[in-house]
C-alpha cells in the first residue's frame, strides 16, 4: 500500500472483465462497496421491520427512528405533496449515508468520493425534479425562473441568474458530496502518513489529529448525506409547490 493519499480512491477490477458491446461494466471495488452498503441497509431495515412489537427492540427502534426522521424532513421541506417520493429520498439518504460511513472503515473504498457516482445521482435528481415540475405545472414551471416582485428592468438579468443557478444544481449537489468525501479521506490519509514518517517521537500530534479527524469525518459523512437528501427535498419542493 503506497503512501500516496490518492491511492485509496483507485478503482480496480475484482474478478473477470465483463464487457457488453465493448463497454466495460466489470465488477470493481466500487461496485463491491455499493453492493455491501445496499445489503447492510436492506438487512438492518428488514430486521427492523419484521417484528411488530408495541415496545420496539433496538434495531426496530433504529429503523423506525430513521423512518420518522426522513418523513419529518420531507414533510418539513416539501409538505404533504412530497409523500410519494418518500421511498426514493429514504433510499437516497440511506445509500449515501452508508457509502460515506463504510468509507470510514480502514482499507474501505468510499463510493461517494467519486464524482461520477455523485454526479449520476445528482443528475438523476435534477432530471427527475425537472420532469415532475413540468408534469405538475406544464410550461408554468418556467415561472420558477421569474421571481415575483422583481422590477421589470432587472428581470432579464434575474432570469439568466436563476436559469444558471437551476442548471448548476446537479453540479453543486454532486461536487459538494464528492469534494467533502475526497477531502476528508485525503486529509486522514495524509495525517496517517505523517504518523508513520514522524515515528515514535513526533507522530503523536498527527495521530491526535487523525483521531479528531475521524470524529469530524463521521460527522461530515452524516451531514453530507443529510444535506444531499434535504437539498433533494428542497428541489422537489420547488417542483411540487411553485411559490414564485
Amino acid at each position: 500500500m503506497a503512501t500516496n493519499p490518492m491511492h485509496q480512491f483507485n478503482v480496480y477490477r475484482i474478478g473477470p472483465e465483463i464487457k457488453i458491446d465493448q463497454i466495460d461494466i466489470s465488477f470493481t471495488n466500487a461496485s463491491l462497496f455499493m453492493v455491501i452498503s445496499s445489503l447492510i441497509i436492506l438487512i438492518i431495515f428488514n430486521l427492523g421491520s419484521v417484528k411488530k412489537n408495541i415496545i420496539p427492540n433496538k434495531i426496530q427502534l433504529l429503523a423506525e427512528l430513521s423512518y420518522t426522521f426522513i418523513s419529518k424532513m420531507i414533510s418539513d421541506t416539501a409538505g404533504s405533496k412530497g409523500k410519494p417520493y418518500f421511498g426514493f429520498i429514504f433510499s437516497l439518504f440511506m445509500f449515501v449515508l452508508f457509502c460515506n460511513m463504510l468509507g470510514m472503515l480502514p482499507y474501505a473504498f468510499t463510493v461517494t468520493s467519486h464524482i461520477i457516482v455523485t454526479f449520476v445521482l445528482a443528475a438523476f435528481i435534477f432530471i427527475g425534479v425537472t420532469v415532475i415540475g413540468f408534469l405538475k405545472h406544464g410550461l408554468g414551471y418556467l415561472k420558477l425562473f421569474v421571481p415575483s416582485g422583481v422590477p421589470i428592468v432587472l428581470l432579464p438579468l434575474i432570469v439568466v441568474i436563476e436559469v444558471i443557478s437551476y442548471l448548476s444544481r446537479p453540479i453543486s449537489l454532486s461536487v459538494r458530496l464528492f469534494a467533502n468525501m475526497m477531502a476528508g479521506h485525503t486529509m486522514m490519509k495524509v495525517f496517517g502518513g505523517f504518523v508513520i514518517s514522524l515515528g515514535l517521537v513526533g507522530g503523536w500530534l498527527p495521530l491526535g489529529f487523525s483521531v479528531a479527524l475521524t470524529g469530524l469525518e463521521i460527522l461530515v459523512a452524516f451531514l453530507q448525506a443529510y444535506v444531499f437528501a434535504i437539498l433533494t427535498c428542497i428541489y422537489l419542493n420547488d417542483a411540487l409547490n411553485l411559490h414564485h
Partner: protein
Amino acid sequence: MHKKLVLYLLLSIIAFFSNVYGAESQGMPQLNPEFWVSQIFWLILTFGFLLVILSKFILPKISNNLELRKSQILENIETAEKQKIESENKIKEYETLINNSKNEARNYFNEARKKIIQDIDKKREKIEEEINLEIKNAEKEIVELKKSSPEKINKIATETSAQLIKQLIGEEINNSSISAIVEDLSKKNKGKYYGN
C-alpha cells in the same frame, strides 16, 4: 471560506504528493474514465435494487408498524379512560352502598336498642307490679298479724304466767283470773309494745 481553504490545502497537498510520488500516481483516480461506465452501471443496479426493495417491501412494513402502534396506543388510552370513568363510577357506587349500609346498620341498631329498652321497661314494670303486689300482700299479712297478735300474746302470757305461778306456788290458779289481769295489763301497756 472554510471550504475554499480546505480545497487550497488539499490541492497543495495533492500537488506535493504528486511531485513526490509522481512516478506512481496519475493524479486524481476520480477523473480517470476507465471505470466510469462500470460505476454508473453498478450504481444504477444496486441503488435501483435498494430503492425497489425498500419502497416495495420494507418501508410499507415500517409505516404499518408505526400506524399500528399509534392506533394501538390511542386505543389503549381510550380504554384506559373508559376504565378510569368506570372505576370512578364503581367507587361512587361503592361509596353510596357503604353509606346506605351504614345508615341501615344505624337504623337496625337504633331499632334494636329501642326494642330492648321497651322490653326492659315492660319487664321492669311487670316486675315492679309483682313486687308491689307482694309488698301489699305482705303488708296485709303484717296488718292481720298485728291485729291478731295481742290476743295470742295475752293467751301466751296467761299460760306462761299460770305455769310460773304453778311452779312458784305449786298450786293451780283459775285461768280466768289470770287472763283478766293480763288483759288489764295489756290494755294499760298497749301503747308501749305495739305502738303504731
